[in-house]
């Protein structure tokens, strides 16, 4: 049945290598986790952390090689097969990759579209062609396969199985029954809905507000011209701090920056607040204040507060995977008919995910959680 047992077993070995990779290097949960025996393949309690440029392309690379070897095991490498097989798998994998780019929702297109993946597949095809190319003229005289339909079915089955490994599991029944614990100690099903912050709303929100009580010569003109007033009511979620020439900047995690006049350290005076959802860090250089918030970098000229520039999309989209409770998965809660919930992927066009909602209707925002 097997035209070339050598290639078949090599393909299996590559497949096993791929499984080992997923078990120990991939951080997102995948379909294979459903298999109890899968746990044996994990050598470390947590996945090794590979640089992204490495971990993104290895599955694509191995998949083309593995499937080519596997198929060659059944079909043999005679004639033009030694390059037809790898090219076929390259095309199949390309179709899947392009489907991911289309942003279609659902099981098959959940991974992220990456140019690196495409290159990896092409490289995999190249390597496969080299591997499959017959060494001697004797090998090229192999005859046609005898059990083509079964061979094709098996190859497709294994290939699909490996391919599915790169996507998050869609087990609708588990979503309806698995229980997760939420930050307020409540327990309900693990399906959650993302709460988006609309891009336009986010970028249109007013930024600087000032204390009228503590207005100084710099801030008073802004107040006179109708700038927002905000008085101090304690620090909310204090995070990183930055000290700059008598100014004390305190980040309110994911919400903004408190501005204090700190020339008298025994009595820091609240000057105002920079309202910017997503604020993570601040730094000042040559009089320019830089604030990072999700994808944007805001710059304010401290020597002329009218100069405010928002540089959008300087940083990559922040996926909330690390901020949601263990075991929770994004799904469509509303359309849950007969306790079946459809998995959803994050729709970047709707904005940044700033929190989530569970089945009980409770909403949790990331800025309330310890980060």
């Amino acid at each position, binding site marked *: 049945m097997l035209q070339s047992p050598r290639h078949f077993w090599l393909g299996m070995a590559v497949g096993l290598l791929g499984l080992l990779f997923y078990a120990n290097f991939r951080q997102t949960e995948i379909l294979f986790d459903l298999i109890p025996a899968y746990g044996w393949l994990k050598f470390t309690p947590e996945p090794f*952390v*590979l*640089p*992204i*440029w490495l*971990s993104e392309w290895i599955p694509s690379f191995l998949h083309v090689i593995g499937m080519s070897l596997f198929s060659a095991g059944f079909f043999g490498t005679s004639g033009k097969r030694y390059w037809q097989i790898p090219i076929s798998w390259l095309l199949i994998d390309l179709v899947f990759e392009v489907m991911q780019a289309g942003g279609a929702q659902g099981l098959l297109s959940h991974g992220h579209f990456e140019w690196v993946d495409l290159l990896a597949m092409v490289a995999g095809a190249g390597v496969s062609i080299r591997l499959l190319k017959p060494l001697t003229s004797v090998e090229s005289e192999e005859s046609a396969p005898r059990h083509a339909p079964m061979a094709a079915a098996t190859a497709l089955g294994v290939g699909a199985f490996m391919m599915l490994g790169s996507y998050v599991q869609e087990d609708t029944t588990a979503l309806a029954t698995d229980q997760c614990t939420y930050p307020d100690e409540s327990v309900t099903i693990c399906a959650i809905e993302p709460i988006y912050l609309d891009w336009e709303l986010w970028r249109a929100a007013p930024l600087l507000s000032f204390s009228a009580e503590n207005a*100084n*010569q*710099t801030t008073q003109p802004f107040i006179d011209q109708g700038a927002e007033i905000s008085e101090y*009511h*304690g*620090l*909310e*979620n*204090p*995070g*990183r*701090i*930055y*000290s*700059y*020439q*008598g*100014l*004390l900047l*305190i980040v309110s995690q994911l919400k903004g920056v408190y501005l*204090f006049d*700190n*020339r*008298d*350290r*025994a*009595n*820091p005076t609240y000057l105002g607040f920079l309202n910017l959802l997503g604020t*993570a*860090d*601040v*730094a*000042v*250089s*040559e*009089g*320019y204040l*830089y604030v*990072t918030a999700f994808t944007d*970098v805001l*710059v304010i*000229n*401290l*020597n002329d507060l009218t*100069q405010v*520039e928002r*540089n959008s999309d*300087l*940083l*990559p989209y*922040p*996926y909330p995977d*690390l901020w949601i409770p263990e075991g929770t998965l994004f799904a469509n809660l509303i359309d849950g008919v007969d306790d079946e919930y459809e998995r959803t992927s994050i729709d970047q066009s709707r904005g940044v995910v700033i929190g989530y909602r569970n089945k009980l209707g409770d909403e949790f925002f990331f800025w309330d959680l*310890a980060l």
Partner: protein
Amino acid sequence: MNKFKALVSVTLLLQLGACGDGSSNSGNTYTGTGSAGSLAAMTTTSGQLHILDANGNAHTFDLTTPMQPTRLNNYAWANGQTLFNYRDSHLLIGRETGVLVYRLPTEVDRDLGRVVPQFTGRIDHIRAYDPVIAVDNIAYFTTRDGDPEQLTRQDQMSAADISEYIEYVPLTQQELNNGAVEVPPEARLLANYSELPEPYGLGYLNEVLYICDGHEGLTQFTVEPIPGVDQDQLAEGEFSMQFVRHPLSEQWPCSDVIATEEGLILTSAEGVAQLQIGPEGLQILSLLPAR
């Protein structure tokens, strides 16, 4: 009574002085940079802005037009946690598996069009989270297991001599082509301390190291030579220096600390406290409590 009057007068004068400063500063000119905590994931170096995104990848921007940072490069190191600007000459990146040292472009480099930080080397340690600072060619970094209640192998503080990294100039492609051989710099671990259950942010001032511990709050250390140890004849794994703890009279919670000549600024979930460093120890100046 006289003393009291004098005190009040002095206080008033000081406040007037402060007001005076304020009015003369109304044409406030802010220049230079400030001080960040060791947990910062963003830092500016001479003319450049470096940011660690949510995935831990580093992005470098050019600040020639200060209001509009322009992208120069990004580096996909997984899980970079903190950034530290060492004397505008090197960038230290604290990450889960160690500390990365990058050489920032000098004037000469920029003239030659080399504007991107060059990788110099890395210091490996056990996998944990860590901020890093450096003073006088010595890097201080902490690693922790994430659990303030437990002291494990991962809860460590270390001091490493990084002079080889700082002096190292990566070979140019031409030099490599001519047969020059890369000799990667090495870190020399000087001291190690493993009794703090959750060492976190750190600051350094006047040869005193301030470490924030998740369980014990602010702690104070100096790094001193171990008496009787011959620096030139160290056995394998032997350290030449040690962390010496100087207990504080009070406990101040902190996750990170900024240490400057004016004093300490601590931040924690409980708020932002400012301490004065005096001959009699640390005294609290002000506290901004969290809600």
